[in-house]
């Protein structure tokens, strides 16, 4: 296997890991924000 | 310190009536020793491997018995009673010395057996004893603290080993390499390092435990 591909694969794994995680986080965050808005609306 | 001694006395008194911890840890040690001995069988393992196996047996025996001292207080609802009459620091020392005595007792029984069964030969005896002592101090220090933590969680038994292992690994690794020197396998230069590491580890883990125990006990 050409070494440059190995390096690329490694690089890809790292970025995929980070982005996958962040994507998950942002999904989570918008869900939480919705819930928070709903809760604070009920207050008033 | 007198109070710590009283707690130690109380725990020994209690232990004498049931012999639960002693039985658990000792039987565990004997069973593992037998298993190791059987699996090696007639092959002659190198002294290097035997040194490592000895510590693995001791580590897992410790894992089977050292948590008992805190788990018992929690499960019989006596922890609160003890809290009402004792300062945390005394409780820690009392439990620490109980575990130390327990572990050394197991070592006194297991190590001669190990010599006999496994063909294990120690060349520098006094050095070996020093290594055992320092190693036991480290195992007990970290083990007692983790025992205090897990006594307040669920799934105590499994958790104890999982939490202890990474924390006890430095002392375990140094003890194995120092034991290696004791059987005459390694150059002397390495010996000093392992001993230094163990002393430093013992001091650090025991100090940290004393400082942190307050939070765990009076949580």
């Amino acid at each position: 296997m050409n070494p440059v591909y190995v390096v690329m694969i490694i690089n890809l794994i790292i970025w995929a890991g980070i982005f996958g995680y962040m994507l998950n986080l942002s999904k989570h965050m918008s869900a939480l924000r919705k819930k928070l808005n709903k809760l604070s609306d009920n207050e008033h | 310190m007198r109070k710590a001694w009283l707690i130690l006395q109380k725990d020994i008194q209690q232990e004498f009536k049931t012999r639960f911890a002693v039985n658990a840890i000792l039987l565990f040690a004997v069973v593992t020793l037998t298993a190791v001995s059987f699996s090696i069988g007639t092959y002659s393992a190198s002294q290097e491997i035997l040194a490592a196996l000895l510590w693995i047996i001791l580590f897992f025996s410790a894992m089977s018995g050292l948590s008992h001292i805190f788990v018992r207080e929690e499960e019989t609802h006596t922890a609160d009673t003890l809290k009402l009459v004792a300062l945390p620091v005394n409780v820690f020392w009392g439990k620490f010395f109980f575990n130390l005595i327990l572990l050394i007792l197991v070592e006194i029984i297991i190590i001669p057996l190990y010599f006999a069964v496994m063909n294990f030969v120690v060349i520098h005896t006094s050095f070996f004893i020093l290594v055992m002592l320092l190693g036991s101090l480290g195992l007990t220090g970290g083990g007692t603290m983790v025992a205090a933590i897990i006594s307040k969680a669920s799934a105590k038994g499994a958790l104890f080993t999982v939490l202890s292992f990474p924390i006890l690994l430095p002392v375990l690794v140094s003890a194995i390499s120092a034991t290696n020197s004791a059987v005459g396998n390694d150059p002397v230069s390495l010996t000093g390092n392992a001993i230094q590491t163990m002393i430093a580890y013992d001091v650090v883990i025991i100090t940290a435990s004393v400082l942190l125990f307050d939070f765990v006990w009076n949580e």
Partner: protein
Amino acid sequence: MYLHCDAVTKYFDEKLIFKNVSFEASTGNSIAIIGPNGSGKTTLLRILCNLMQPTEGIVKYKHNGNVLLKQQAYRYFSLIGPYLELYEQLTARENLTFFAKMQDIPNYPNLLTRLMQRMNLSGREDDPVKTYSSGMKQRLKYVFALLSEPKILFVDEPRANLDEEGIDTVYSILTEQRKKGILIIATNDSEDLKFADYKVTVHA
């Protein structure tokens, strides 16, 4: 001796147990903590004894005008409760000797004999606690609590597991404690309430 419980609130995670419980008591006072089952009477007692941290608010002890630190305060009070057990495998004497030594009680053998007699337990000193009946265990807890001659006595359900005779003894103890120190009981029993100068109600 002076006990001050200021705006104590306790949550278990999101569940509110009680909110803003405040009272104060000094020598000669007695207080009953009342509330329906599961309202957190026991939790409040545990907080007062420093066995548990309140979510908000503070508990303060004063002795001769000085505020006591946590590590000093525990010498001045005793607690009797169903969740507070003695060492089952040890005998009554071993248990009590251990606790007496831990609390630096001078002349404890005499005191021990006297209290065992008073709680109608003499003769059973050298039996393991696990052979005791639940009523006897409860009486033994009184011996343990009174051993240190506490300035403040906390009692959770004074009558639990006791027969007529036991209750009489306990009541005489409560009367005494009320005179010479502070008495705090958690109860729902109207009989027990006779011992209280005033009541603190806990509820969510």
